[in-house]
C-alpha cells in the first residue's frame, strides 16, 4: 500500500507541476493576480507531495519491504538502521527522487520567501522551476520508477553496495544535490528575466542569496565526497579527475563565477547579460553532470544506470532546457540594457578577470571530460584524458587567478589604483616571499613548484587578512575604534575574506600533501615494525570480528614515536557475503592537521600481510579550507539587507498595502 501511495503522490506532484507550468504564465499575460498567486499554493503543494513520496520510499527501505524492486536491489534486512535510511538514495531511482525533492523544496522556498519579488517575476520563476520539475517527474515515472513491485516478493534483499555503507552516503549526496539543484533557482530567475525582457540590480540581489546557498552546499558536498573517497578507497587519493567528479566541479566553477559577476551586477548594474548567461550555464552544467552520471554514457558498466532509455530521456531534457535557455538568451539578451561603465583596473575589472579564468577553467574541465566521449562517438577512436592532462591545463589557470585574488577586494569600484593596492599588499607579499625563501632553504629535493605554491597560499591568506585589517584600520586607529569598525563592517566583507582565505587553506593542503606525502608499501609479519616520517608502527597481529552484515579482518598496530607508544591503529578489510565484495577500512591517526594513513592488503601464504602506510602532512587543510569557504558564504548570506549597499529606508509605514 505504502509504495502505491508514494507513487500516487508523485503523480499528483506531476499534475500540480503541469498546472504551475502554465497557469502563472497566463496569469502574467492577463495581469490576473489570482492566477499568478496560484503558483504559490502549487509550489508548496508540490513539495508536500514529493516529500510524501520520498517518505513512502524511505518507509519501504526502513521496513525492508523487499516487494519493492529497488529495495530488493539495494537493501538488506541485517543492515544497520542508518544505512537503511541512506540506501533510499544510494541507487539510481531513489537518488532521482531525492533530486526532485530538493527541486521542489527550492520551489517551495521561493514561494514562501519570495513575497518581496514583483508578482510577475515570481510567477515566471515558479513556472520555469515547474517546467524543470515536470521534466524530471516524467523521467522518474516513465523510466526510473522507484516504487516498482516484484511478484513474488523475495525474502531477502541483495544489499547496498558495501562501499556505500558509510556515513558519507548520508551527507555527501544530499549536499551535492542541494548545490546542483540550487542552481536551478538562478536558472529560473534568468529565464524569467529574459521572458520579461527586463533586468536590474535588484534581480541580482534576489538571485545572489540562492546562488550563494547552493554554492555553499556544493562546496562542502564536493569536499565531503573527496574526504569520503580519501578514507574509503584505501590509497589516500583525494581528487582523481574522474568524469563523475568533474561533473560536480563544472557547476562549482560556473557557480563561483556567477557569484562574482552577480556582485558586479548588484552593486554596479554592469555585466547583466554575462550574469544571465552564467546563471543559465551553471544549471546547464548541473544538468550535464546529471546526464553524465545518470545516463551511463561514461562507460556502461561503471554507472548505476546502463539503460539507454534513461540516457536518451535525460539527453532530451538536456537539449530542451539548455538549448531552449540559450536560444531564449540569444533572442532576448540584446533587449537588456547595459549599465555601469568601469575602467579595466577596478573592482569590476578584477571580477571580470576572475570570471575569465574561472570560465576558462570550467571549459578546460568540460573539454577534458567530454572530448573522449565525443571523439569516440564521431571517429570511434578511444583516448583517455586523466589526471596528468588536468594537472597540466587546469593548474596553470588557477595560479594567476589566485595571485590576483587579494587585489580584487582592495581595488576601488569604477576606477582603481593597482599600484596603491600593491603597496597595501606589501605585508602580504613579504609573507609570501619569506615563506618561499624558508621552504627553499629548508626543504631539499623538491620541485620548484612546491615553495611557489606554498608562498602563493600564504600570500592569498595574508591578502584576505589585509583586506579586513585595512578596512577596520588596525594599527592606524585606536583599538576601540577598530572594534567598532569591525562590528560595523558589512558581513559580506567578512564573507569574502573567509572564502578567499579558505581557498588558500585548501591550496596549502594540496601542495603540502602533493610534495611531502611519504609512502611505504611492505609485507609485515607479526611483531615486525615499519617506520615512516618518525612514526614506528609495530604489527601486533590479525583478529577476526563480525559486524552486523559483514565479517572483518582487523590488523592491530601500535604506533610509537621516539620509542613511546602514542596510539593504536586498526585498519580492516570487510567482506560482505551478500555481494561477495570486500572493502578496505583505512585507519587514520590525526596529528594536528596531518594524518598517518594505514590500509591493509592481502594476507600472503607466509603469514605476512601487505600494508600500505602513508604520512599525509597537512592533509586535513584540504577539506578544512572548504569549510572555511562555507563559513564565508554563511557570513555573506546573513548580510542580505546590507549587501545591496543601498541606504536602508528610514521609518517605514507600519502597514504595507497588500499586493
Amino acid at each position, binding site marked *: 500500500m505504502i509504495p502505491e501511495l508514494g507513487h500516487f503522490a508523485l503523480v499528483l506532484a506531476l499534475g500540480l507541476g503541469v498546472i504551475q507550468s502554465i497557469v502563472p504564465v497566463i496569469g502574467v499575460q492577463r495581469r490576473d493576480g489570482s492566477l499568478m498567486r496560484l503558483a504559490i499554493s502549487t509550489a508548496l503543494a508540490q513539495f508536500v507531495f514529493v516529500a510524501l513520496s520520498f517518505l513512502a520510499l524511505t518507509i519501504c527501505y526502513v521496513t525492508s519491504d523487499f516487494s519493492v524492486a529497488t529495495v530488493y536491489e539495494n537493501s538488506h534486512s541485517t543492515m544497520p538502521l542508518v544505512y537503511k535510511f541512506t540506501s533510499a538514495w544510494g541507487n539510481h531511482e531513489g537518488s532521482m527522487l531525492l533530486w526532485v525533492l530538493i527541486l521542489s523544496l527550492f520551489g517551495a522556498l521561493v514561494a514562501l520567501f519570495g513575497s518581496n519579488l514583483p508578482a510577475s517575476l515570481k510567477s515566471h520563476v515558479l513556472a520555469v522551476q515547474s517546467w524543470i520539475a515536470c521534466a524530471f517527474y516524467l523521467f522518474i515515472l516513465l523510466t526510473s520508477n522507484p516504487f516498482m513491485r516484484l511478484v513474488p516478493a523475495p525474502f531477502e534483499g541483495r544489499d547496498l553496495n558495501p562501499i556505500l555503507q558509510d556515513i558519507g552516503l548520508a551527507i555527501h549526496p544530499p549536499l*551535492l544535490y542541494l548545490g546542483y539543484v540550487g542552481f536551478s533557482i538562478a536558472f529560473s530567475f534568468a529565464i524569467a528575466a529574459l521572458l520579461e525582457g527586463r533586468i536590474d540590480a535588484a534581480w541580482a540581489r534576489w538571485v545572489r542569496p540562492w546562488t550563494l546557498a547552493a554554492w555553499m552546499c556544493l562546496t562542502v558536498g564536493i569536499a565531503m565526497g573527496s574526504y569520503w573517497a580519501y578514507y574509503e578507497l584505501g590509497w589516500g587519493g583525494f581528487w582523481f579527475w574522474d568524469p563523475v567528479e568533474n561533473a560536480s566541479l563544472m557547476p562549482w566553477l560556473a557557480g563561483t563565477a556567477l557569484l562574482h559577476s552577480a556582485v558586479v551586477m548588484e552593486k554596479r548594474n554592469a555585466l547583466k547579460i554575462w550574469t544571465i548567461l552564467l546563471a543559465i550555464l551553471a544549471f546547464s552544467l548541473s544538468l550535464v553532470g546529471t546526464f553524465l552520471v545518470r545516463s551511463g554514457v561514461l562507460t556502461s558498466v561503471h554507472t548505476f544506470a546502463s539503460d539507454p532509455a534513461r540516457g536518451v530521456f535525460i539527453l532530451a531534457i538536456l537539449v530542451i532546457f539548455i538549448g531552449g535557455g540559450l536560444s531564449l538568451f540569444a533572442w532576448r539578451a540584446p533587449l537588456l540594457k547595459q549599465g555601469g561603465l568601469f575602467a579595466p583596473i577596478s573592482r569590476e575589472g578584477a571580477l571580470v578577470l576572475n570570471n575569465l579564468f574561472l570560465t576558462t577553467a570550467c571549459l578546460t574541465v568540460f573539454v577534458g571530460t567530454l572530448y573522449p566521449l565525443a571523439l569516440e562517438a564521431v571517429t570511434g577512436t578511444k583516448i*583517455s584524458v586523466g589526471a596528468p592532462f588536468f594537472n597540466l591545463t587546469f593548474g596553470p589557470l588557477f595560479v594567476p587567478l589566485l595571485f590576483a585574488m587579494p587585489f580584487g577586494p582592495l581595488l576601488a569600484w569604477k576606477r582603481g589604483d593597482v599600484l596603491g593596492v600593491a603597496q597595501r599588499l606589501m605585508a602580504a607579499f613579504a609573507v609570501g616571499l619569506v615563506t618561499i625563501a624558508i621552504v627553499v632553504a629548508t626543504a631539499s629535493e623538491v620541485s620548484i613548484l612546491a615553495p611557489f605554491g606554498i608562498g602563493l597560499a600564504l600570500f592569498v591568506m595574508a591578502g584576505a587578512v589585509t583586506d579586513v585589517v585595512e578596512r577596520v584600520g588596525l594599527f592606524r586607529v585606536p583599538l576601540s575604534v577598530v572594534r567598532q569598525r569591525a562590528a560595523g563592517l558589512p558581513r559580506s566583507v567578512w564573507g569574502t575574506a573567509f572564502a578567499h582565505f579558505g581557498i588558500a587553506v585548501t591550496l596549502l593542503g594540496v601542495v603540502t600533501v602533493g610534495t611531502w606525502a611519504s609512502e611505504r608499501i611492505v609485507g609485515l609479519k607479526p611483531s615486525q615494525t615499519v617506520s615512516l616520517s618518525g612514526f614506528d608502527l609495530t604489527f601486533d597481529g590479525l583478529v577476526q570480528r563480525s559486524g552486523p552484515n559483514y565479517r572483518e579482518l582487523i590488523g592491530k598496530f601500535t604506533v610509537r614515536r621516539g620509542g613511546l607508544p602514542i596510539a593504536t591503529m586498526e585498519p580492516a578489510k570487510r567482506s560482505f557475503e551478500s555481494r561477495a565484495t570486500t572493502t578496505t577500512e583505512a585507519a587514520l591517526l590525526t596529528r594536528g592537521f596531518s594524518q598517518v594513513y594505514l590500509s591493509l592488503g592481502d594476507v600472503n601464504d607466509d603469514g605476512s600481510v601487505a600494508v600500505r602506510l602513508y604520512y599525509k602532512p597537512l592533509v586535513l587543510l584540504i577539506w578544512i579550507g572548504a569549510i572555511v569557504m562555507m563559513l564565508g558564504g554563511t557570513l555573506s548570506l546573513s548580510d542580505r539587507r546590507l549587501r545591496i549597499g543601498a541606504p536602508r529606508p528610514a521609518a517605514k509605514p507600519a502597514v504595507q498595502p497588500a499586493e
Partner: protein
Amino acid sequence: MRRLAAMALLFAAITSGRSLAVQPDEMLKDQNLEARARELSRELRCMVCQNQSIDDSEAPLARDLRLLVRERLTKGDTDQQVLDFLVARYGEFVLLKPPLEGRTIILWTLPPLALLAGAIGLFFAGRRRGLGQLEPATLSNEERRRLSTLVDKPRD
C-alpha cells in the same frame, strides 16, 4: 557518492579479494627504477577502469601492466620507450595524457585559445567603451525611491 558507487560496481565486477594497488612483491629492489616505475604508472591508464591509473587500480590487468612496466625498465628501456611499447601494444587509450596530434588538437588548444580570445575580447570591449565617459547616468531621486520600496519591503 557517485564515483564511489561507480568504483563499487567496478570492484564488484573485476576484483576478487584484492585490495591494494601496488603490492610489495611487485616493487623493484632498485629504488631509482622503482621511482621511475611509479611515475610512469601514474601516466598509464588501467584500461578496464574508469579513468584510473594503473598505479591506483586494483584490477588484475593493472597489476599485469605494472609488472610489464617494471620488466621493461629492468631491461634498460627509457621512460619514453616504455610508453611507446605500451602504446604500440594497447593503443593511445593507455595514455592518461593524450599526445598532441591531429585528433587531440581541439582538446589541447581550446582552453588556451578560449583564454586568449576572452582576454582579447575584453581588451577591445574596454577600449570601445571609452574610458572618458566613465560616469553612467545615475538614478533620479524618484527612481531611487521606487527601487527602495520595491526591494526593501520587509519579507513578512
